[in-house]
């Protein structure tokens, strides 16, 4: 990626087919197994191992079981608080969503370059986050119309709407409703991409300034390096927060579908 000291901070997001699977396709759509798909697979395996390690089902849990149970309880409490008793049946979906995004974000931050592996954060692609967002939105629509029929449209007329605003409020509500999948997908994708670009740019500062000599290395490189350490911590926080926000917003939207306003 670095040619003559030039670093392209966007190069890390490039999707490349792997293992010679370029020609794979279904019904005319090319679906090569890319580095993005590889990291989805790694995320899936890591998540499977994590939950599997907590399946000992002991009465007095060990550390690992405690960790897994605290994650399921976290999702359970999230749904109980935001949706109520009806939220129990969404635990598998919200848990999968939350843990998939969380593991993807954290795995993408691991400093695996040290052992020669280039981590890829597929949550920094809106083509991936968009699928998750549309899936959540579709579930909200299906549940809403399934449970309430056309009464679901009353979602667009909140309680206490003044009669003379009845022509405006539903339009605003409709727009805010339709924006939900985009805000879900774009928030995650932008947050992950911005963090990775920032880290890449700062690391290029460190490398280039060091190459320009000891003076620039001290004046520019060292502060950039210290800033990188702080931003790494921040990015770990963001990885958790973005997964939480995605799960939280999905459960809030599910609440609309389950209970209307």
């Amino acid at each position: 990626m670095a040619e003559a000291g030039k670093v392209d901070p966007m190069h890390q997001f490039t999707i490349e087919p792997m293992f010679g699977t370029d020609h794979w396709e279904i019904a005319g759509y090319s679906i090569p197994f890319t580095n993005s798909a590889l990291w989805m697979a790694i995320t899936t395996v890591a998540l499977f191992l994590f939950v599997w390690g907590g399946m000992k089902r002991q009465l007095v849990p060990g550390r690992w079981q405690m960790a897994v149970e605290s994650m399921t309880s976290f999702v359970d409490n999230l749904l109980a608080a935001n949706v109520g008793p009806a939220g129990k049946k969404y635990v598998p979906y919200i848990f999968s969503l939350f843990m998939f995004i969380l593991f993807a974000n954290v795995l993408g931050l691991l400093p695996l370059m040290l052992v020669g592996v280039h981590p890829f954060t597929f949550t920094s692609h809106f083509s991936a986050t968009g699928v998750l967002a549309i899936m959540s939105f579709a579930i909200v629509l299906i549940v809403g119309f399934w449970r309430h029929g056309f009464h679901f449209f009353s979602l667009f007329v909140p309680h206490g709407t003044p009669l003379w605003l009845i022509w405006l409020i539903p339009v605003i509500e409709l727009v805010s409703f339709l924006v939900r999948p985009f805000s879900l997908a774009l928030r995650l994708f932008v947050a992950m991409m911005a963090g990775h670009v920032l880290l890449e740019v700062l690391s290029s500062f460190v490398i280039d300034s060091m190459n320009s000599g000891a003076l620039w290395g001290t004046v520019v490189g060292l502060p950039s390096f210290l800033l990188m350490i702080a931003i790494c911590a921040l990015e770990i926080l963001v990885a958790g927060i973005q997964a939480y926000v995605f799960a939280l917003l999905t459960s809030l939207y599910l609440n609309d579908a389950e209970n209307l306003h």
Partner: protein
Amino acid sequence: MPQIAQLSETYASQIFWVLLFFGLIFFVIGKGMVPKVMETVAVRDKQIADDLAAAEAARKAADSQEEAWRVAANTQRAEAQALIAKAKGEAAKATETRLASANTVIDQRLAEAEQRIAGARAGALEEIETVATEAAGDIVARLAGVTVDAAAARVAVKEALNG
């Protein structure tokens, strides 16, 4: 920006693999494993609640038993004290009776002894009188050569002895 630049060539692959792997996670982990984990948590919570309830019931039972024990102990203590008081009274009465009977015996013996002493004294005086009378008769016979009637002698001796 590869996300946009590569969109047309990669979107199908991205969508396919996300759906595939998320579906795997949802059906295997979310549907298969998570309910078991949550069931374990629920079983544990229920067990803890049951144990707490059992402990509370046991505590209540212990409290009521202690109360019953306290009541029984109080009754028994009262009974024991009544028994002791009764025994004390009886003992005192028995002592009194035995003392009284012993006193009677002692008094009787004393009276008998006094009687015996009085008898002995009277016997002794009689003896002395007899001896004195004989002695007086003998003395008179030897000195005066007069035979004194025994009865007269006795009167004289009595006079002399009793003044």
